[in-house]
């Protein structure tokens, strides 16, 4: 196992070197907050109504399945108009912006996202009365032991 551990450190070291030039482009808690503010404006972000279903431990960050559901009657008078997902450490924090309406019947979006590293993921829902609701989750992304040689 010593050999494996050494090799592991070697790969980890190599990964750091490769990723360094990108660090400037990486999102931070500040840019995450800024990206959310770009959507919500001055409106307060309220906890609740939103459920973010994402595995707490991810075996490979290339495709992390997530489901966002929002409690809403989805009627013409009271419905969810948008579901957004944000993350903290990807180069661009705003992962997707989905537009919904009463024709959806249920406020739900499932997709798969990339997470380069262990980080926080935030889902924000906008309702037809102009309010913003949110839920967050911490996701641990394990780094694959045997990555393919890119060449």
């Amino acid at each position: 196992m010593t050999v494996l551990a050494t090799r592991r450190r070697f790969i980890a070291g190599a990964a750091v070197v490769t990723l360094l030039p990108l660090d400037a482009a990486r999102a931070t808690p500040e840019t995450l907050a800024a990206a959310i503010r770009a959507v919500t404006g001055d409106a307060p972000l309220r906890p609740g109504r939103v459920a973010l279903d994402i595995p707490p431990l991810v075996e490979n960050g290339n495709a992390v399945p997530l489901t966002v559901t929002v409690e809403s009657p989805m009627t013409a008078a009271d419905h969810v108009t948008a579901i957004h997902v944000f993350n903290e450490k990807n180069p661009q924090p705003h992962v997707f912006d989905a537009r919904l309406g009463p024709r959806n019947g249920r406020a739900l979006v499932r997709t798969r996202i990339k997470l380069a590293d262990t980080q926080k993921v935030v889902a924000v829902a906008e309702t037809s009365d102009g309010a913003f609701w949110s839920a967050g989750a911490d996701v641990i992304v394990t780094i694959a032991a045997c990555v393919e040689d890119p060449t």
Partner: protein
Amino acid sequence: MANVLINAPKTARRGETIELKALILHPMETGFRPGANGTIIPRNIIQDFTASWNGVEIFRMRMSPAIAANPYVSFCAVASESGVVRLRWSGDNGFAVEESVTVTVT
């Protein structure tokens, strides 16, 4: 044949909420990764996914490079009347794919 898989019920009761799932072949190249020669591989992503029911848009999603390769999207729709659900993906380098499924409402 377009490289798309759509899962939607063929029939639904009027007013029933159904779930539609769609999968499309696409690399979703982020534009942040260096290639084998060290230079950055240019971004190539799907930017927009839209769904319409008999011509009326019912769902739209703006995607970023953080959507996983071969994007999977699932959403719900009220089966209001029989018709055609048209899904459209568009993105970088003029990428545009359209596929439709028919849902019969009883």
